[in-house]
Each structure stands twice: as C-alpha cells, then as structure tokens.
C-alpha cells in the first residue's frame, strides 16, 4: 500500500529525515516509536503533504501512485489520513460544515453522489457513537476550546467519517485519560479491515496493548534504526532509548 524509499526531508535547510525506508501492506498495523525530536511527526507531515518540509531525496508510492506529486487534499482523497499530534483550532468553522465539506469532497473524488443532509447527519451520529464523542462538541467550531483529550477523540471521529485506507495517528494517545484511551483504541480497532492499514506513532506501550501492532519501528535521528515485532515496544518500555542512542 505504502512504499517509502530513502526519503530525505529538510526544514529551513536543516535535514530532519535522513533516509527513511518503510513498506506497509494492507491489513497491517505499524507502530513508530522514538525519542522526542527524532522526526516522527515530520515523517507524518511529509506524507500528508505539508509544504514547509522540503523533500530532497527519495520516493513514496501510495497504492501505486507517486504520493509526493499529489496535493495534500488529493492525498487525503486517495485515502491517506493524518491524525494530528496537535489538532488545529479553526474558529468560526463549525464541525458540521467542516465535515460536510470533507466528506463530500471525498465522495466527489470517488465518483459518488453528495450525501443528503439527512444521510450526512445520520452518518455523523453513527460515527460519533463509535468514538463516544459528545454531541455538543460537533456543534462547535473545529477544535475550538476542545480539551486536549477531546481534540484527540475528534481526530478519530474524523477518521471514522472519512474511512481512509491508510491512517497515520500521531500520538493520538497522549493526553487521553484511561477510559478515553480505551475508547479511542477500540474505535481504531473497529475501523480496521483487511483492506486498510495504520501507522501509530506513540511513546507508550500502553496504547499497543489495545492496538496490537504487526511491526514496531524505532525512528532516531531521522532514520529507522530498528524494526521488529510487538515485543520491541515492551523492550523499549523497560530499557528506554539509551541503548539505541549509544548503539549508533
């Protein structure tokens, strides 16, 4: 589904990604872990098409398309979803209008009719239940005044609405209380099929108790320095990152 080959990216002339290689197949869950500032969010942002990062080298194919050539919106329409580490507040734009615009653009891209207002509201209701998000939240402006946890839940809600092929969840677990963590993880699990895949970026093994990864990668200093099965996360929890950093 996603193939990343020797990806390098800069911000303001500073190289952050320094040769990433990664392949993700349908049905898989990959976890990416790594110390602060190692480039995890940068990788997510580059995949989603954030212009402030400059790709200097490498290739990314997403379902046989050259991902790097697509605009951010086309990447999303092709089925890529980024759950933001820091979701953005958009004052004045209601969740309902925001989601309506997003869902309908996605449908247009897939050659589907626009949803009727009734069908759209029905869909909103169903997906809201999935992540147990308070109705009052979706009547407000996008993320405006949402608590940290509410913002994260809202990311998963949007993911449910858009039904992506590949979702990249950047620290969706941080800031969640224990119940919310379970709800969010369950939501992600319910959305999982044999045809979609996800990348979960996290610092904590705890999330991976719920969302069990097929592969765990350690990103350090702009490179994936170690990949293994889910046991790697347990090892990190125990030993920290020093052995990785020193091993370099």
């Amino acid at each position, binding site marked *: 589904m996603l193939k990343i080959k020797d990806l390098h990216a800069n911000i303001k002339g500073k190289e952050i990604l320094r040769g990433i290689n990664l392949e993700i197949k349908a049905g898989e869950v990959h976890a990416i872990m790594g110390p602060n500032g190692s480039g995890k969010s940068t990788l997510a942002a580059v995949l*989603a*098409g*954030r*212009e402030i990062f400059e790709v200097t080298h490498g290739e990314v194919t997403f379902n046989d398309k050259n991902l790097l050539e697509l*605009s*951010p*919106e086309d*990447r*999303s*329409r092709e089925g890529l*979803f*980024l759950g*933001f580490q820091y*979701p*953005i*507040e*958009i*004052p*004045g*734009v209601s969740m309902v*209008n*925001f989601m309506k*615009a*997003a869902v309908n*653009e*996605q449908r247009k*891209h897939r050659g589907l009719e626009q949803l009727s207002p009734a069908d759209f509201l029905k869909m909103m209701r169903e997906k809201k239940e999935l992540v147990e998000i308070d109705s009052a939240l979706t009547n407000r*402006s*996008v993320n405006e005044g949402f608590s940290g946890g509410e913002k994260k839940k809202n990311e998963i809600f*949007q993911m449910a609405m*858009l039904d992506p092929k590949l979702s990249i969840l950047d620290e969706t677990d941080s800031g969640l209380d224990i119940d919310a963590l379970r709800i969010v993880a369950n939501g992600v699990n319910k959305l999982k099929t044999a045809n979609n895949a996800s990348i979960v970026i996290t610092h904590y093994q705890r999330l991976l108790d719920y969302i069990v990864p097929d592969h765990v990668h350690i990103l350090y200093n702009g490179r994936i320095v170690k990949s293994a099965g889910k046991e790697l996360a347990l090892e990190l929890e125990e030993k920290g990152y020093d052995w990785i950093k020193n091993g370099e």
Partner: protein
Amino acid sequence: MSKTTTISVKEELVDLYLSNLDLITDRSSAILNRGRQAAIENFNLLGLPEAKSEKYKYSKIEPLFTQDLEKYFTPKDITFKIDDIFRCDIPEIGTDLALVLNGFYLPKGDKLKKLDNGVIYGSLAEASVKYPEIVSKHYNTIADNTSEGLVALNTAFIQDGVFIYIPKGVEMDRPIQIINLMMSDENLFVQYRNLVVMEESSKASIVICDHTLSVQKFLSNVVTEVVAKPNSNLELIKMQNEHNDSAQLSHTYVHQQRDSKVTTNTISLHGGFIRNNLNVLLDDVGCENNSYGLHLTDRTQHIDNYSFIDHAKPNCTSNELFKGIMDDQATGAFNGRILVRRDAQQTQAFQSNNNLLLTADAKMNTKPQLEIYADDVKCSHGATVGQLDMEAKFYMQARGIGEKEAKLLLMIGFAHDVVKKISIEPLRVRIDELVDKRLRGELSRCHNCPMHCC
C-alpha cells in the same frame, strides 16, 4: 492647488443650496426647514472633510464631489416595477417595509403607517407634518452639525428619509426593514435623513439595506439619528450592497438614555467607497452598546469605519467588534475612538478590530484611540492585520478539502464572528449565505439581495 478646489467644491454646494432654496423649503415642513440656515452656515465654515484632518486621513472625500453628479430636489420619476422589488420580505419573519428611492420615501400605500400597537413608520417629511410634536422634539437634536461638515450639508439639504417611532412599552415582534434604492439614468448625488425614536421600554429591530439598481455613479450622504430612551432596546442592522461606482457617506448618531441597549451591526458587503461614521453617546447610567461591523472589500474598493463611543456617565458597557477581509488592491481603515469621561466610573469598554489581507497589495490601517479620564474602568482594545492561517488551511486540506474551498471556509468562519451577533435567526442565516456568495465571487451586482428585495 488642492486648496482652490476645496473652496470651489464648497462654494458650488453652497450655491446649489441657495439657488434651490425655494424648491427645498417649499416642499418641506417648518421642522425640517428650521435648522437649514444654521447648517449651511456651518457647512460654509467647515467645508468638506480634508485629507489633512486626522479623522479623514485615509479617505479622500472631496474627489467624490467633483464627479459630475445630478441633484434633484423633487423626486424624479423612475419607471420600474415596484412589484419586482416587493417579491421581498425576509421569509419566515416578514418585515414591515419602508422604501426610499434616491433619497425620497416611496410609498407602497400610505406615506406613513401606524400599526395597531402605535408604531409609526414611513416618510420623515410626512411624519414632520402629521406628528410634528414627536419629530420636532427629536429631529436634528443629536446629529453633530457644528464639527462635521458632511452632517451640516445633509441638514441643509435633506427633504425626506425614514421615520420610525416605537411607543412606550411596545415590543416589536418583527423587524422593520428600510430599503434604500439608488436607481437612475444619470449619475446622482443624494442626501436623506432617518430618524428613529425608541420610547421608554420599547424594543425593536431595524434592518437597513442599501442597494444600487442601475450602473450609474452614485454618491449618498446619509444621516441617521437614533434616540434610545430609558430601558429601550434596539438592534440596528445595516447592509451595504452597492456597486463599485457608488460612494456612500453614512453618519449614524445614537443617543442612549438610562439602561438602554443599542446594538448596531454594519455589514459592508459591497461598495466602491464606503465611509461609515458611528457616534454613540452613553448619556446615563446602565447603558449597553454593541457596535459590530464586517466588511468584505476587494478590487479597488475602499472602506473606512470610524466609531466614537462616548462614555459620559458611570456604569455603562460598550463592546465593539469590527472585522474585515481585504482582497486584491482594496484599501481600508478603522478608527475606533473611545472616550471615558471623568464621571464615567465603572465603565467597561471593549474594542477589537481584526483584518484579513488576502493579497500583498491590499492595505488596512487600524487605529484604536482610547481616552480615559476615569480611574475605575475596564477597557481593552486589540487590533490585528493578518493573513489566513496556513496551519488551519493545511488541516482542512488534510481532510480532502481543496485549497480554494479551505480558504473560503476560513474566510467565512472569520466573517461569521460578526454575523452571528445578529439576533434574528432567519436574517442571520440569510446574511451568512450572502457573505458566502460574496466571498465566492457570485455576488458582483446587488441583484441577489438576501432579503430578495431586488
């Protein structure tokens, strides 16, 4: 060089007054004629606002008057189907309508209506004849003829406009709508006058819509006086929707008495040149004033909002929120003056002015001006001039929303902050739709008025 032009424009206007004096006064009541002489003398002293005056620094008024414009002192016959206009009314609420064409009240039936609850609305000229005691008591009592040349000019010339009277204790359950139409086969300069009297404990909403219906050049100089008596509550919404060759100078004077509440919301949707002066006097304790404004300005359009909130007495609150979106080469200014006089303890006065510039060529000048002479007050002001939030734009794109649409949603969201202050829901929804259309570029002419008036 410019000095000589100033003198000649001023002299021309004074001459125009003198040579049409009979025509102007013969058709007007004594009440309207009363202040003319003093007004023209004031105008002769003051002249038009000059660019070197701080208050008009960003808006050149004089060139507007050197255009070749016709002036009429009797209503000019215009053939147009009035029914086309009156497909109108805001659905779901219905409004009481007052129509002004080129500065003269245009009756659909009677020139003046009196509703069962005692509310009177219609032609100001007619009201000054039929209800001289009410008009006489309030007309030209709060407009500033002594320092504002344009107001003096208006007082000297005006013959008509709209009069609205809400009697003591009456609460209107639907808005009164004033539609000002400009339509002519010649370039035109018009002046008219509105007077709103809110008696004690009355409540009303008034919607004023300004439209141009033909392509000619128009210049209008309009004064609106609002008297809000104790405990009254008025919401005054102004929709400016004129074409690029139009210029509007509007002066609104609000006099608030004890415990009154007045909310004005000026939506400048479209217009070649707009200068809005809003003057609010909080003249007794317990008043609340909300002054809101939104402008969507593009191409070579110019907008200038000036507001003056005078906290003369203790314990009053004022909230100001003005927002603007500027595209292309548009230019604009905001000057918000707040005066808290020495007696006005426990004043709360808040002001913010936020602007979005969509291009590097668009320009906005914003200037808060707080003068505080009392010590126990809570005041704040803030002004921003910025671009669209790129992070928010990316967030939307990451959900599949195209770049153009994402920008539009952000602009609509920005504008909605002001629109949401409108308390009448169907009207709010309409104006939201209009703003949406305007930002999408689907509203270049005024023919898609939200009120379906035209």
